């Protein structure tokens, strides 16, 4: 049995990727099982999905804590989520990134693979620059890097089960298959894992009472574009502050707006509403 864990962001297609993988594996004659982490999905918020593939009926109904393969649909998650937690020695880390696989940090003995699925998705008109839908390109790369499914079965699954733009998605899967690069696990940078984002609770209160501020939760990882304020043209009109739904803008000592980037989700309202257009949305790398 092979266990695969997908890390993506709400709206990116991570959950659909795990379901498509199941459909493809079934077409290959395997017995698949796929499911999302049963949480609350918010557009841009980190989400997790799981897939198991075996030749026999799968006798497990639990989340996957020690996967053979980890698939990361958004490179921004590497800095905020502990994506490689539990990844098995000899396993594979596959990341959608413009960088070379050699640069990916992973536990010793783990193979690393990279595919520029964002570029592939946008080239086929899938999603927007703000939210590219990279799932089929990533699945193509997964098929090549792991051989858990054939490209042929994946293509058929895409044609049968992707509700919109099946042809573009099929081509994206093919390009992902052709474009992935894999390196073995002998060498790689050592980068400390991000600390767990989970908020430690106080001792249990008398009843379900929450009283810690959500300020300790940082939502920067939701962002694909970052606002940059060009203060030379700023008129201090406060529109950016007034319309920010995330309370992510404050003022400096002389009254210029100041971003609280740990909370900014990159919605782009401040840039759109800025009368002199001094705010620019810059793609996260």
């Amino acid at each position, binding site marked *: 049995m092979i266990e695969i864990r997908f890390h993506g962001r709400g709206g990116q297609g991570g959950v659909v990727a795990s379901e498509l993988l199941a459909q493809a594996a079934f077409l290959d004659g395997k017995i698949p099982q796929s499911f999302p982490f049963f*949480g609350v999905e918010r557009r841009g918020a980190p989400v997790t999905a799981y897939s198991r593939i075996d030749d026999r009926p799968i006798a497990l109904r639990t989340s996957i804590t020690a996967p053979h393969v980890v698939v990361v649909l958004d490179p921004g998650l590497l800095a905020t989520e502990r994506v490689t937690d539990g990844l098995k020695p000899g396993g594979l880390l596959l990341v959608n990134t413009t960088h070379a696989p050699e640069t990916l940090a992973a536990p010793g003995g783990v193979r690393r693979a990279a595919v520029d699925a964002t570029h592939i998705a946008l080239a086929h008109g899938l999603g927007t620059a703000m939210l590219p839908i990279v799932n089929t390109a990533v699945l193509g790369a997964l098929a090549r890097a792991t051989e858990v499914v054939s490209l042929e079965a994946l293509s058929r699954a895409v044609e049968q089960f992707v509700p919109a733009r099946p042809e573009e998605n099929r081509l994206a899967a093919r390009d992902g298959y052709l474009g992935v690069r894999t390196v073995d696990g002998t060498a790689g940078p050592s980068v400390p894992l991000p600390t767990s984002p989970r908020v430690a609770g106080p001792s249990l209160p008398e*009843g379900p009472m929450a*009283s810690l501020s959500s300020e300790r939760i940082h939502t920067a990882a939701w962002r694909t574009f970052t606002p940059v304020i060009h203060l030379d043209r700023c008129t201090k009109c406060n529109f950016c502050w007034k319309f920010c739904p995330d309370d992510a803008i404050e003022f400096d000592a002389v009254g210029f707006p100041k971003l609280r980037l740990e909370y900014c989700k990159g919605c782009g309202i401040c840039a759109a509403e800025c009368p002199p257009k001094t705010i620019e949305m810059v793609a996260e790398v």
Partner: protein
Amino acid sequence: MTMKVLSGNYAQSYAAQLARVQVISAYPITPQTSIVEKIADFVASGDLNAQYVKVESEHSALQVCISAAALGARTYTATSSQGLLLMHELLHWASGVRAPIVMGVVNRAVAPPWNIGADHADTMSQRDTGWIQFYAESNQEVLDTVLEAFRLAEHPDIRLPVMVTEDAFYLSHTVEPVDVPEATLVDRFLPPREPHAILVPGEATRLGSFTGPDHYVDFRKQLADAIERVPKLLGKIEEEYRALTGRSHGGALPTYRVDGADAVLVTMGTATTTARGVVDEMRAAGHKVGLAKLRLFRPFPDDEIRRLATQVGRIGVVDRSYTFGRMGPAATEVSAALYSGGARPPLSSFLAGIGGRDITPHEVRRMYETLLEGRTPTTHWEDLEEEVTVHG
């Protein structure tokens, strides 16, 4: 001490007044309505200084109490049958946010067909909602138990809502002498509610909240632990009440002439009174029979049932409702308690008094005889053996 001839419903009303409840909310339903009418009189006359929120449904009545309790108010409501069923979702909310509400419930049959007679199907179907449940036998017990219920509900180790139930008409509309204790006495027994875990203006606190699988179980276990503490605390509270009023109702499972009994019936509510008379009569005739009153149903008094089982030959449980696809609900609980106990005497489930049928001495006597003859333990629909004696 003032003796008044009161209905069970008025016993509820007087208890709420003596408890100095601060927020009341209710919706009319037969046969509960006179409880909240009387409270409306108390508020109108100034005999009770409280906010009385008249709502458009029982569902809203309970929500008013939950939200008022969340700010620290002492709250009371009352309902019956369909009204209780409409509250179902909010019963879970009340216990979940640890709201110490006391609710009077007049046990009435559930439709269809429409029927306003005594029947326990309403409260029995709510036994898994995290509420403490008392079943009362007399109007005096109704009044005393409501006062004790506030002490239990608001105790820092408990903080859970309580239902005090009474049988439709057999108590709700039956008048009998009741000792209504002096207000000063009750004030000593039941001081104003101490605020625990409430919302305070200006404080950033969220009550209710939501959790993933990480913390949800913690709060469920917290609630489970709280309700388990009830039996021990009930003893202490009753002791205090007795010191002030001279009365106690015997804890969770008061027993009557059970020593060395060949057959014991476990009863709830008003069936107990009739059965007690039959016990005396049958004991006089040489039959070794006894009685146990299931006064506290949630939490269920496992230990008391197991102790009873070591003293008696056979047990019959009289239920005023039926769990479809199972036996009587109290019988189910008694047998579950016995499974893990040392003694497991044969057990029978008797269904009697369904939908307002009388539970007569004749019927009770037949139940004892069934037990004494040692017939196969099974479920008996006793009402169907009787001539229908309902008039009107």
